[in-house]
């Protein structure tokens, strides 16, 4: 058993991949708790996809270098987030339609740009499905630094984000700068997505944001505990998924997301069963 756990750790790329999955899982789950509570799953999914042209431009401009990718991706995310907000506020188009328009348009732009490169399919696959085993020591520092920054900001503005998520009208009447806090939250979501891209890729990103947070939401009744549990579940999924990927030779991003999904299924099923049992017990009390 111990051998099974230790064997992959002899490869430095596995160790880096595991560390990246742990960090990314935790930070996505914390930010994702807001995504779940505010019903922003579609927005999160769209933002992840809308990053693609940023990656493509960064890739083309940098000649394949890793470092500029982060900034280009972040730029694409912020532009998309603001674009969605502007379209839905200045026209009578609903926000979800605006999200659809921006998301598909940006994603198409990304595909178009990447298709101009010769090794098209391989590079596109990396962006779409992640490449957690290709995390370099430098990447790890960036991921860790950004993740720490996100967590610190969430802690500093915890009570403001709480009001904003529970009752935006109260945030306004309390004279909190609601709009700026809203933008700050969007930027945090964008940052979390950008640093997580290498683990699960664009296509499965939304699962990192919502699945562990939703699992925790089923089980927990206070926001701080929900965030902590979600982070734990996500990190656990990251590690288990990576081991599964190692031993079963399946794509790592998919393995991580499937693990998180299985945990959600367990939590949901467990809740249903305990609810039924309670119901039966109370029926029994009445009849017996």
């Amino acid at each position: 058993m111990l051998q099974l756990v230790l064997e992959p750790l002899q490869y430095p790329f596995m160790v880096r991949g595991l560390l990246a999955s742990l960090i990314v899982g935790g930070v996505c789950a914390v930010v994702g708790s807001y995504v779940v509570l505010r019903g922003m799953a579609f927005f999160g999914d769209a933002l992840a996809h809308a990053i693609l042209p940023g990656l493509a431009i960064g890739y083309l401009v940098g000649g394949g270098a890793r470092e500029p990718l982060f900034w280009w991706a972040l730029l694409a995310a912020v532009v998309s987030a603001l674009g969605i907000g502007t379209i839905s506020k200045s026209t009578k188009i609903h926000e979800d339609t605006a999200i659809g328009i921006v998301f598909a348009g940006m994603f198409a732009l990304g595909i178009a740009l990447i298709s101009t490169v010769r090794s098209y399919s391989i590079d596109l696959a990396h962006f779409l499905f992640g490449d957690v085993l290709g995390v370099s020591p430098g990447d790890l520092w960036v991921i860790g630094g950004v993740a720490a920054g996100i967590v610190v900001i969430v802690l500093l503005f915890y009570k403001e984000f709480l009001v904003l998520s529970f009752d935006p009208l109260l945030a306004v009447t309390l004279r909190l700068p609601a709009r700026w806090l809203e933008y700050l939250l969007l930027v945090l979501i964008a940052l979390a997505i950008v640093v997580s891209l290498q683990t699960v890729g664009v296509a499965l990103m939304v699962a990192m944001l919502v699945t562990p947070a939703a699992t925790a939401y089923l089980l927990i009744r206070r926001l701080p505990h929900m965030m902590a549990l979600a982070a734990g579940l996500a990190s656990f999924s990251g590690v288990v998924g990576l081991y599964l990927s190692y031993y079963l030779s399946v794509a790592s991003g998919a393995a991580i997301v499937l693990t998180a999904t299985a945990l959600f299924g367990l939590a949901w099923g467990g809740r249903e069963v305990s609810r039924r049992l309670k119901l039966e017990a109370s029926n029994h009390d009445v009849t017996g």
Partner: protein
Amino acid sequence: MPDNPYAIEATDLTVAYQEKPVLWDVDLRVPPATLMAIVGPNGAGKTTLIKAILGLIRPAAGQVLIYNKPYAEQRRLVGYVPQRGSVDWDFPTNVLDVVMMGRYRSLGWLRRPGSRERALALEALEKVGMAPFADRQISQLSGGQQQRVFLARALVQDAQIYFMDEPFQGVDATTERAIVALLHALRQAGKTVVVVHHDLQTVPEYFDWVTLLNVRRIASGPVAEVFTEQNLRLAYGGRIAFLSRSPHADAEEPPTPDLPMPSPTRREEPYGYPESAA
């Protein structure tokens, strides 16, 4: 500056939504320590009126003075109790945390609510009879209990003027009594309370001022003067067969429920949108 300025003074308030006026040229003067009801048919712009006064909707025209100064300078004097359907009661938090939210502004940035906020919140919960529920998950509250939590949250803001959007909507008798007692206590303390209200029968009993609204201001003033059959007809249209007697005359008699009461279905308005004139 006059010795006794109005608590609220709105002039020429007009709100249009997509070119269609939902509030037209409304003047409002409310003296301090007054309990005022805003009544009118569905789509009359009642919620819009308080949201416009609170700056949650930008009016097309008009200005609002709070104690003789522009609203922007006086915002800390104002508290708001929104319709309770405006939030998600499945949110993972408990009663005490929701009430303490009312203290967040005075607490300031980067500070966590501590024992002082906890004490203030418990005190406010005591006043609405909800202290035993402090640690209760908010998803486990009844509608009336939710309403009282919202009231407690407004109380800890320690405002001078309160705006409440249909606090009596669909609540149990205990809550109704608690709200009435609270309104009286607030008036006693010199506070002004403006309440969007649906139940015309209870207006004379619960309030001392009333504003009748139907896009335009029909009448506004002391209940005894303006809560008349003629004004009600003007506000609600000729289609109501209103009581032939004075509406606030015989308080002992059970009120005749022959008004076309607005249906008790919730109208959950998305933030920033005026009431639809459906």
